[in-house]
């Protein structure tokens, strides 16, 4: 693996966008993208969890490889992510109760956000070193936030438009995501 940091970032951010090209983190993408004001904090919170999880996963991986316990990797990762989410939840509850209420059930659900576990698993599978891992986590988080913000902006405008009753709700969101995903395919090859 001789990808430069910039390549990894662009790849995770645009060319292989976590949500629109790799289908990771779709639950919050469909669930929280109704309003712009919750989409941004959700993206930032997820990015933070991704970064911490990526750092811990890097350390844990070395430790487990050293002890020859690779089969515990998945369990260790998921426990780390769950604890990080708990931490973010407590911090938000203390310093920003309004935001805490707005995010509601989706905050603890970051634990089951595949994008977070995805970052940890992919960086292991691709054998990224320390700097590469951090870049990858930040790029993935930025990509997730970008997709969330784009989707929320489109959906905010759609609330005023006349949509056939059958197509309202998730079906419409999925169609929109498909079109966004088509647009993101234009970035293919950018990361080299």
């Amino acid at each position: 693996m001789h990808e430069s940091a910039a390549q990894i970032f662009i790849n995770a951010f645009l060319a292989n966008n976590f949500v629109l090209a790799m289908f990771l983190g779709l639950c919050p993408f469909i669930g929280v993208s109704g309003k712009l004001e919750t989409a941004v904090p959700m993206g930032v919170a997820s990015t933070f969890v991704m970064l911490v999880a990526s750092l811990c996963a890097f350390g844990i991986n070395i430790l487990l490889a050293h002890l020859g316990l690779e089969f515990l990797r998945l369990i260790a990762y998921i426990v780390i992510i769950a604890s990080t989410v708990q931490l973010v939840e407590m911090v938000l509850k203390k310093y920003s109760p309004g935001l805490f209420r707005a995010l509601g059930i989706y905050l603890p659900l970051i634990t089951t956000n595949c994008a977070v576990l995805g970052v940890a698993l992919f960086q292991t599978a691709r054998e990224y070193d320390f700097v590469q891992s951090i870049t990858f986590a930040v790029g993935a988080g930025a990509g997730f936030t970008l997709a969330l913000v784009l989707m929320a902006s489109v959906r905010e405008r759609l609330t005023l438009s006349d949509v056939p009753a059958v197509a309202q709700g998730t079906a419409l969101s999925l169609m929109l995501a498909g079109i966004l995903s088509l647009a993101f395919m234009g970035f293919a090859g950018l990361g080299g």
Partner: protein
Amino acid sequence: MNASTTERWDEFMEGIWRQNPLFVMVLGLCPALAVTVSAVNALSMGLATTFVLTCSCVLVSLLRKLIPKEVRIATYIVIIATFVTVVDYLIQAISLALYDALGAFIQLIVVNCIILGRAEAHASKNPLLPTLINALGMSAGFTLGLFALGAVREILGAGTFFGIALFGADFQPWVVMVLPPGGFFVLGAWLLIFAAIARRKNARPLSSPAQGVR
């Protein structure tokens, strides 16, 4: 009070039709869209998820009186992660080609919301038998849903079904269907169809009240 066979059948069908995890509850989207580029992949993913969902729910149901309420979610996750690790090594042993095709998405079964949702909403409150039936029904519903997506995407995007060419050599594959956008479009289309059916069902009792009784 013993549940009759009909009730059990009802419980099973609940997961396949009325509460279908993919098309009605719209859960577990990540694996549903990422691996369904072909019918074989979709079916394997469905079977892997079935194994994890059923085993985890059975274990959670058996341990439900032992698990303290405060740490239940963490416990469920660890139980699920254990079974996913088992499935991960199992697929690797059975077929390396399949393992490469599914990639990290086998391990990502851990974060499939359907499994945690079932463990929390059903298995933690019910004894073994209802849990087993419910879990099997949900898994069957999810597998069918994945298969519906995978089959459509493979037929349109590659012109094949389980690898067998369906159309003549002149067929121009609709490549976008096996690319990421196709996943969104096909699932969106299925949801549209289900929404249309649900609307017609809801509209019916008004025109002919006799059919209102289930």
